[in-house]
């Protein structure tokens, strides 16, 4: 059985889970939207037109087909802003999750592999980080670094480091005991080789699942930080920042809060469904069914 067949087997198990497929569908569409934003969006996201301020969506009798989802208080096309916003939200997720993996995986691996004092020190620091509520910690970090989208991503990444390194540490501890690791040591492998080539590939399953879930939460947290004015700054079409803008017009123009909210919801929902599906597909026991 080669790599290709294993992948096909994995796809089979994954596609048995209809909810996960649905989630994958959402994310694929979102990705396409992000990539093709220049072709999909009829306007630039920051293009203002005061004459069409607060126009309702197209299906409303006061709406117009030109502005499909209506406009905001500056007369910017809401649809275009949401389309461009997908780029920002996806890159927030990717960058903060990627960054947290880059730091979290080595921390967890070294703590578990070397044990003893290294493990103790690293894990106590992680304990302290975990004791602080994540949003509070993100706020503190952004306050120190200064409010901007980039700093919000850094803050979210730092917030994730503890959970990732804990997870990695746990899986490495479990794998480390297994005989194939001793066998590889007996064959003359060095520590680094053991860690990154022998052990780590066996721990990837839970890390991938957790990262998918983290991706979803990162989008929400970034939106939250932007909502508090600590993330993306106007006029960036970030979904969370759009929610803030819409606040004063809640009664007058509910579409302004509704559509960005829906976009956030769909993204998070999609990633969570995929995460669940991956969790099932990567669990060896699930292969035996059907």
């Amino acid at each position: 059985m080669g790599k290709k067949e294993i992948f096909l087997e994995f796809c089979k198990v994954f596609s048995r889970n209809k909810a996960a497929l649905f989630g994958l569908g959402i994310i694929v569409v979102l990705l396409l939207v992000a990539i093709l934003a220049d072709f999909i969006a009829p306007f630039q996201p920051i293009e203002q037109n005061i004459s069409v301020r607060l126009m309702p969506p197209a299906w409303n009798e006061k709406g117009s087909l030109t502005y499909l989802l209506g406009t905001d208080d500056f007369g910017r096309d809401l649809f275009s802003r949401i389309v461009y916003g997908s780029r920002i939200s996806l890159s927030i997720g990717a960058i903060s999750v990627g960054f947290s993996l880059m730091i979290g995986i080595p921390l967890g691996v070294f703590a578990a592999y070397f044990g003893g004092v290294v493990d103790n020190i690293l894990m106590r620091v992680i304990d302290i980080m975990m004791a602080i509520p994540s949003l509070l910690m993100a706020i503190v970090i952004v306050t120190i670094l200064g409010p901007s989208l980039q700093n919000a991503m850094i803050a979210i990444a730092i917030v994730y480091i503890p959970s990732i390194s804990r997870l990695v540490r746990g899986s490495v501890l479990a794998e480390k005991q297994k005989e194939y690791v001793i066998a590889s040591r007996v064959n003359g492998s060095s520590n680094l080789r053991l860690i990154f080539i022998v052990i780590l590939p066996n721990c990837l399953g839970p890390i991938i699942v957790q990262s998918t879930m983290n991706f979803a939460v990162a989008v929400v947290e970034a939106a939250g930080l932007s909502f508090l004015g600590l993330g993306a700054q106007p006029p960036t079409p970030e979904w969370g920042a759009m929610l803030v803008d819409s606040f004063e017009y809640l009664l007058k123009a509910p579409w302004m809060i509704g559509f960005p909210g829906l976009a956030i919801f769909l993204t998070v929902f999609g990633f969570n469904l995929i995460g669940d599906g991956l969790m099932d597909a990567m669990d060896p026991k699930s292969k035996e069914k059907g």
Partner: protein
Amino acid sequence: MLIEVKDLAVHFRTDKGVIKAVDGVSFQIPHGKTLCLVGESGCGKSVTSMAILGLVDHPGEVVAGEIEFDGRNILECTEKEMRKVRGADISMIFQDAMTSLNPCFTVDFQIKEVLKLHQNLKKKALHAKAIEALEMVAIPSPEKRLKEYPFKMSGGMRQRVMIAVAMACQPKLLIADEPTTALDVTIQAQVLELMNQLKKDRNTSILFITHDLAVVSEMADHVAVMYTGRIVEKADCISLFRKPMHPYTEGLLRSLPSENKGRRKSKLHSIEGSVPSLSALPQGCTFWPRCPYAEEICKKEQPLLKECESGHFVACFKTEGVI
């Protein structure tokens, strides 16, 4: 002599105090011979083998002794030098074939890993060597098997792959830590036969660790019986089975089920009591609480390993004629 272990002592520092897992063990293995290390669980067999490979982990520590392998004391080697010895000169196979192959990689990767680490080979030569290694352990259609992942294979097949990996670099010493315990009896016989064949063809020495006396009689040239971190009896295979001298060995041999001796109703013999904890060993000879011949002196002094007949070493006051 290929390997000479002299007065090896491995201690573990724990909260409960120092545990002497291996306490003054000595043995030798000549080229192309098999030494079986026999004993109950926790008597220090596996720790001894790890010490030979320089892989005793914290909190364990080799506190005394010498291991002379191929003319040099490998206890004095640096970690880097030891990495070159492991896999190339000394290699090891394990008890549980199910977990001792990396589930993430193909057989191909795992055989070539050890070859790449120790031999500078070109791609084609590497491939040829890997195939050769699988052929050597009698795996059918090796080309096909190379591309497979371990989970597709049966236990016996995996054990063969593991032996192939261990033998790929043609080591001088193969340590086998209960390699057949997890296999069923027919596969067990095949694997043992395979090991004996390799021993003959390659002149490899084998340190065979087991608690199965039937396997010992099949494999051993020499046998060393361990109890609580010490060797209590050491002899060539035939004289040990014919004339066990230490009460513990005697008990072990009597505990074997036999088909012709006694009637069906006769109970299987067992040694009284159980193995003492290494953290609370009895004074004197550690076997006295379970020994049918124990006398006062056994509770006070520790018998030393002495040659009672030519090549037959025993650590017991009874055979010494003291009691």
